[in-house]
């Protein structure tokens, strides 16, 4: 069964067309890197699929149904810079937010929820920072907190917007281990990614995007020099490294 089906999606910011006729299917248990140049519409694609940004045309279906009906099965890790880390709260509290849907609106969290959040923090190697102010965490630690928040959601399909951007090497390893674990447990993960050198190591599927889908499929089939050039255009300094 298809986890995610995107058909003919177009979107714009103001008058600029950002996405044009985007279509692809995602199979369960895949770990897909969404790759493309700046302004290719990678983040916009995530936001359109999650109905955080309006689409001009097309349709998106989750598990053969609508997002509204499958909300609890879809998890989202926004860009770290999308929130104000000066907000007065601690790491554990942010992770607990991932459980709010399960706790129920207008209900108070119970001890079991605190324990679940604590466990997710431990999985990300952040147990010692549970009570730490989020403003006092490093960028990598903040990203781990976001990952832990997504883990407690226990979704089947995850969207992550540049989780590896600007994080330290240890965090990158911890996050990639977690993503592979998710995949092994049958979860489907789509990650906006910007480092072309690690694409082959990290992802079993690639979606090459530049306003529209350039190529999509298994990494070994799709992540070819020709396709990358098609997505990025001519000015590519790193190509040498890629072909080496």
């Amino acid at each position, binding site marked *: 069964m298809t986890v995610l089906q995107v058909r003919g999606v177009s979107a714009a910011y103001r008058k600029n067309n950002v996405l044009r006729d985007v279509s692809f299917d995602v199979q369960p248990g895949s770990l897909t890197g969404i790759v493309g140049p700046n302004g290719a519409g990678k983040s916009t694609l995530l*936001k359109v699929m*999650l*109905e*955080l940004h309006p689409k001009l045309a097309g349709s998106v279906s989750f598990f053969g149904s609508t997002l509204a009906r499958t*909300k*609890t099965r*879809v*998890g*989202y890790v*926004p860009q770290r810079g*999308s*929130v*104000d880390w000066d*907000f*007065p*709260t*601690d790491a554990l*509290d*942010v992770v607990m*937010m991932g459980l*709010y*849907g399960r*706790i129920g*609106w*207008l209900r*108070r*969290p119970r001890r079991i929820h605190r324990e679940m959040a604590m466990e997710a923090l431990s999985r990300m190697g952040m147990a010692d920072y549970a009570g730490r*102010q989020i*403003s006092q965490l490093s960028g990598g630690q903040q990203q781990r907190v976001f990952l832990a*928040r997504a883990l407690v959601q226990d979704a089947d399909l995850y969207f992550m917007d540049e989780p590896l951007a600007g994080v330290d090497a240890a965090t990158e390893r911890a996050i990639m281990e977690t993503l592979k674990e998710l995949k092994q447990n049958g979860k489907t993960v789509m990650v906006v990614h910007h480092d072309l050198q690690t694409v082959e190591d990290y992802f079993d599927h690639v979606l090459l995007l530049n306003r529209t889908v350039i190529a999509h499929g298994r990494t070994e089939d799709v992540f070819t020099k020709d396709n990358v050039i098609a997505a990025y255009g001519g000015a590519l300094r790193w190509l040498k490294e890629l072909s080496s």
Partner: protein
Amino acid sequence: MNALLSPNAQWVLLSTLILGMASGMIGCLAYWKRQSLMSDSLSHAALPGVVIAFAIVGVKEMPVMIAGAAASALAGALLIHWIRSSSRIKEDTAMGIILSVFFGFGIMLLTIVNRTAGGNQSGLDGFIYGQAASMVRKDVYTMLVLAALVILIVFAAFKEWKLFLFDPDFAKGLGLSRRLMDGVYLGVLVLVIVIGIQAVGVILMAALLIIPSVSARYWTNSFRRMVLLSALFGGGSGMGGTLISTFGANWPTGPFIVVASSALFVISLLFGAQKGLLVKAIQLRAQKQSVARSWSGEPGVKEGSAG
């Protein structure tokens, strides 16, 4: 101290206490929504509604005035939203336009109403700088009920507010409707403004929303404690300002409330436990000393302490 003994004055004190608490709490929401100035625009925008409501009904009935003020403030909010979304004008400019246009229009209407027969005795002038003493028992009841409602809404949906203010996109992903939360937020913001303008006045009402929450930020790193502390500061300044203004004849309440809350702000700015200037200075000094110690120590000490 005679004023204190009068039962009416006691009721008025109680009402400004709970008003201050409600606006302190809503102020925290506005603070993290980065909309402190919005509350100022909306309170100014309430004035024409108050005057029009009086002109239509002819008596100063609090529920009528509140309805007029709310309609007018909501119209201001909608216009700000419309200007921002349908033109290139940014939100701060849109708020500046609405604030001055609505307030100017309100003053114009007020001048006209005051010239008509009976207008002078209306006490409408009190809505500009606030005249808590002019409230009667019935007004106080209305205010208490509405302020309690606002406080209840904040507490009942506390974790929802926190999520909505920290990460609205993630909140939407969990199924918490952004439109609903925006609507409820605007509702409680307007409500606390309109119940406050008789006591504090349209010009200074925003101070009771902005200053307590900023002051509270200096003391704590927990959102819950920030809201509670802001309620305490707001309630304290509301009551304190009202108390001082009752000592004079016909002294307006609003300015004294603002002075009281500003005093709390200065104390917080200097001595606040989390971000206060004094604490920061002490921390900096301690850090400097420890750096100096590690540098003057034997070689290897620095490496040892760094690990």
